[in-house]
């Protein structure tokens, strides 16, 4: 199909759930009220690291209105975790707590107040242990072990991969730069706080409604944690009020609600407080980075060596994947012939980090893009032109064996350079030598640019299997309506809407004619979950396949009736017929009835699994994706030299979306990503003091408001990728990536201060200006890296530049 043939695709339609959300009709998990429902609450540890010596729940049990009190003793003694390699969590800790906020007991009561009172009556005897609150502290104290497993004392994961000879590349370079960066951790801050309702019914079955991004993985883990058959458990993802990666693990409140419901025979709801959401976390890892890159005079990258240290917090979560992600996506953007990556994830006594929008990649992206800016200055190159010159080649492999298909980054850079007036505003490298030192302090303007790439869906599931990553069952009924069943979870990104648009496009009906039933493990085929920007592509491809199969059967029936060839039929405007005899066309409803009479019940499945492209080396499973999205961003801002405050004026961002299935939704995702990137760049920080989260509230954890959000000018670049549904790539994560480095680069352009750390605070900028006044290097950021021995790097030949398949063979294609 060409673009002009589409009737639904490309239209700026409202989301199918927009009205319900706007008028407050949507029922989130905390809006569920079932008859006889009890209210649960978790007792959480006040210690960052302590042995549990005793738990006495007797006084809590005696409190009138309390139905049940449980501890870890009421659950099977098994540890779990989202990744098979990191089974290190307990819903209710039994022997040891590893962070403030670890759950140790749970109560179900007649109301929340009673449950809270009961929690305060539980007496836990703790023996406090020293707490380790930073990467440096965790590595400096191997004698204090947070976990007994891992790649070393307090080292969860230690990876080292080398693709080609980086030292030889550096030796042959005109310029080699080494820089150190730090990216502070931050949290997702979804509007909806996590909540779950569990209902154990008298037939011995169990249903869990939860604000989860991955009902399938929760469904896989619950049987072991609750010691009951998976076939008797149903997990339903309630509409999710914002996920961003924070609702991707199985959580204590979900498990406790299930067990409390089984014990009380009542439905049990546990709704977390905002403070608890800060402890649940699984957000952005704080990452310390050292990056060494070689360049030619013309600005080509000769090779790159990256080291990352991740502060993982108290548990594994997705951390092994996060560790790889700090390294493996960097080579996708620019020509990088050889590459070495070393990464280590360290345990600390803080809430566990995990996947947040961009999972592991915004940190190294910040490092690389800021370093490119510095290199461009040293080489006397325009940083926009330099980037445009060194773009990766479409349909080739990267040094680390990732297959790249279409690349729209060149056009993205052109669009933002053009729209922002980059050439007039940038006007050469000026700030380091001119400006603030002599002129009176004032407000200085600057522009900065950065680019990025992100994956459209992980190429492998988190557990090894050969089954589909996404499945759709599509059923046409005699009303002319079509029902879609799919395990995909709409977390606000619009996957329910995509599941309506795509079948509507294929069948020539309206999105309103499609009824979407998502994310219910008893009802819907598996979709792995809303993570890694996989849903539109994967459930979209499955939906197109299922709709194509239905269309084929309908076409056969209509062809017989009209005595024409099935291939000559068009489906549009809720009719099926031959375009030049459109007056004879049947209504879609008539066509469905004919087809059902001929074929029987009209129910068809579609399945999708990504092409099998994992690099043939250990660790090669993290990074492959059907296709990669690209973004380029120009930021214009002012810096107040007296206060150090940054005011953003405009953000121009262009995103290679492959094809915008609905440009309105894509722009929404891009703008949301920009907003979140601004917060990470300028104010957000999940920081701790005296062992406690410093600001676990929405007032004190500073996240930007609309007043801090500048005008965002979004440009969508379409490359029609052969891997995506009607050519589409991802939009939900990638556009965040270039924003923090573009801001840092613009600050340098404005006042000549290099901030090699985010969030960039006014204090940091003033410190940089002060250094500059003293004639010192106006750089603010980390000064040193830990003494740490990475493991021997796995040597793999660089695959850089090898031609890659245009369209790979996919499983379940026919």
């Amino acid at each position, binding site marked *: 199909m060409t673009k002009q043939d589409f009737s639904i695709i490309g239209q700026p339609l409202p989301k199918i759930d927009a009205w319900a959300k706007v008028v407050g009709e949507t029922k989130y998990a905390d809006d569920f009220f079932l008859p006889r429902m009890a209210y649960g609450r978790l007792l959480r540890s006040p210690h960052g690291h302590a042995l549990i010596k005793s738990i006495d729940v007797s006084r809590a049990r005696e409190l009138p209105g309390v139905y049940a009190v449980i501890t870890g003793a009421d659950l099977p003694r098994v540890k779990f975790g989202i990744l098979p390699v990191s089974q290190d969590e307990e819903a209710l800790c039994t022997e040891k707590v590893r962070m403030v906020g670890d759950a140790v007991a749970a109560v179900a009561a007649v109301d929340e*107040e009673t449950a809270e009172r009961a929690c305060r009556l539980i007496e836990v005897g703790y023996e406090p242990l020293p707490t380790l609150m930073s990467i440096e502290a965790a590595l400096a104290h191997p004698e204090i072990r947070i976990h007994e497993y891992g790649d070393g004392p307090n080292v969860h994961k230690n990876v080292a991969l080398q693709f080609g000879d980086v030292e030889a590349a550096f030796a042959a370079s005109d310029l080699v730069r080494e820089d150190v960066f730090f990216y502070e951790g931050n949290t997702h801050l979804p509007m909806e706080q996590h909540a779950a309702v569990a209902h154990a019914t008298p037939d011995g079955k169990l249903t869990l409604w939860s604000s989860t991004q991955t009902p399938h993985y929760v469904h896989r883990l619950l049987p072991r944690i609750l010691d009951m058959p998976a076939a008797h458990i149903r997990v339903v993802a309630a509409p999710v009020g914002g996920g961003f990666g924070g609702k991707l693990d199985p959580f204590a409140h979900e498990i406790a609600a299930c067990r409390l419901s089984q014990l009380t025979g009542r439905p049990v709801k546990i709704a977390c407080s905002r*403070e608890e959401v800060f402890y649940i976390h699984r957000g952005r890892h704080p990452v310390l980075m050292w990056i060494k890159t070689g360049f030619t005079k013309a600005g080509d990258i000769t090779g790159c060596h990256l080291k990352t240290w991740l502060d993982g917090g108290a548990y594994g979560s997705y951390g092994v994947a996060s560790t790889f992600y700090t390294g493996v996506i960097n080579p996708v953007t620019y020509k990088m012939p050889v590459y070495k990556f070393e990464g280590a994830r360290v345990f600390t006594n803080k809430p566990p980090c995990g996947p947040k929008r961009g999972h592991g990649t915004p940190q190294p992206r910040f490092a690389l893009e800021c370093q490119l800016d510095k290199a461009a200055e040293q080489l006397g190159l325009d940083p926009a032109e330099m980037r445009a010159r060194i773009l990766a080649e479409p349909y080739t492999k990267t040094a680390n064996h990732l297959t790249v298909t279409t690349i729209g980054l060149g056009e993205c850079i052109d669009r933002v350079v053009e729209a922002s007036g980059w050439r007039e505003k940038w006007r050469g490298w000026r700030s380091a030598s001119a400006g603030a030192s002599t002129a009176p302090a004032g407000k200085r303007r600057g522009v900065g640019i950065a680019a990025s790439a992100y994956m459209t869906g992980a190429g492998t599931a988190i557990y090894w299997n050969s089954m589909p990553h996404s499945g759709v069952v599509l059923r046409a009924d005699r009303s002319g309506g079509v029902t879609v069943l799919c395990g995909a979870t709409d977390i606000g990104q619009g996957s329910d809407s995509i599941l309506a648009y795509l079948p509507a496009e294929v069948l020539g009906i309206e999105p309103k004619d499609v009824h979407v039933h998502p994310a219910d493990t008893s009802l819907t085929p598996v979709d792995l979950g809303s993570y890694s920007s996989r849903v539109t592509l994967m459930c979209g491809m499955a939906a197109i396949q299922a709709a194509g199969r239905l269309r084929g059967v309908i076409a056969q029936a209509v062809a017989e009736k009209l005595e024409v060839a099935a291939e000559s039929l068009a489906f549009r405007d809720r009719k099926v017929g031959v375009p030049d005899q459109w007056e004879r066309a049947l209504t879609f409803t008539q066509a469905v009835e004919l087809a059902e009479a001929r074929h029987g019940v009209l129910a068809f499945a579609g399945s999708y699994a990504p092409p099998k492209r994992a690099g043939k080396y250990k660790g090669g499973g993290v990074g492959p994706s059907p296709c990669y999205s690209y973004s380029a961003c120009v930021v214009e801002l002012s810096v107040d030299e007296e206060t150090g*405050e940054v005011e953003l004026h405009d953000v121009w961002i262009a995103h290679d979306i492959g094809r915008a299935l609905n440009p309105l939704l894509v722009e929404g995702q891009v703008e949301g990503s920009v907003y979140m990137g601004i917060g990470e760049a300028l104010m957000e920080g999940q920081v701790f003091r005296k062992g406690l989260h410093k600001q676990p509230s929405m007032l004190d954890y500073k996240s930007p*408001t609309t007043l*801090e959000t500048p005008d965002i000018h979004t440009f969508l670049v379409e490359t029609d990728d052969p891997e995506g549904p009607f050519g589409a790539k991802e939009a939900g994560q990638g556009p965040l990536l270039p924003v923090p480095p573009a801001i840092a680069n613009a600050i340098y352009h404005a006042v000549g201060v290099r901030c090699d750390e985010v969030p960039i605070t006014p204090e940091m900028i*003033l410190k940089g200006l002060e250094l500059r006044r003293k004639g010192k290097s106006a750089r603010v950021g980390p000064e040193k890296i830990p003494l740490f021995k990475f493991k021997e790097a796995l040597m793999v030949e660089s695959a850089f530049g090898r031609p890659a398949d245009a369209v790979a063979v996919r499983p379940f294609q026919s």
Partner: protein
Amino acid sequence: MMRLPPFTYLAPRTLHAAATALAEHGADAMPVAGGTDLFPNMKRRQFEPKVLVGLRGIRELTGIRGRGREGMTLGAGTTLSAVAAHPEIVAHYGALATAAGLVSSPQLRNMGTLGGNVCVDTRCNYYNQSHEWRKAIGFCMKKDGDICLVAPGSSRCWAVSSSDTAPVLWSLGARVRLVGASGERVVPLEALYRDDGIQYLTKQPGELVADIVLPPADGWTSAYLKLRRRGSFDFPVLGVAVALRMDGDRVGEARIVLGAVASQPRPAPDAAAALAGERLTPELITRVADLAAGPSKPLDNTDFTHPYRKKMTRVFVARALRALAGLPGGGRAAEEVA
């Protein structure tokens, strides 16, 4: 979810009835007007009053009377939105309109009152936390504990005065009318405060702030600048209120009062004295700003670092003076946010 603790709510219709109810219930009772400060604090168990005396139904607490040239009387129950938008206040007591308009967010200004902001609880990021958090770190002396976590050796509480309007009203020479069960009194606003994070108000527990009385505005101009991380929601972590009466091209009288750097609004009398009789030149402004930063002694218990807040005191005082002098580089309040 955090819930309010149980309480009895009384809804008196007159000030006298409210004062009587407060006297009757003693330490168990607290007054509440807009509730924008008290209710969140109650959810976190900073306060657990058994009785709340609601002031919203008391007509005599609302209303703005008078004119700039003869002085004005503002009912303590007037919403911050109404204060910010009142044309006579905007024209003659500009800093007050600015400060009222910078409190929290539009929704909270529609609920929150001027009296509530004048009496707003002092804040500290060791104190404005949930019960569980405070228990985990070890309770502080402002609630449930006996030490100060900001200054562990100190015998007093260092929670921060976080009112936007208080430093402005102080600089404007406002007085407050206090009404208790056994009578009423009018005191200078500055007499309402004391530099203690716990006992930060001098009024008797049974007394209510009924009115804010502003002196005639003749010849006075004023400015207020607020430091906070974001353009909305955030409490001040530094407030600078400057009021000047010009005598021709020289300063006749000046007052500079700093907010959010102590447990009460903190005047800068030496800086103000240095202005008297002088022309507002850039050189003088620099000198005065240095002097004004002297009394600014923030501690590490709010957003931003305390050295930064101290450093910004100088910058903000200079900007406020430049704005009043019509010199370039004067800050507008709305711009003074990151």
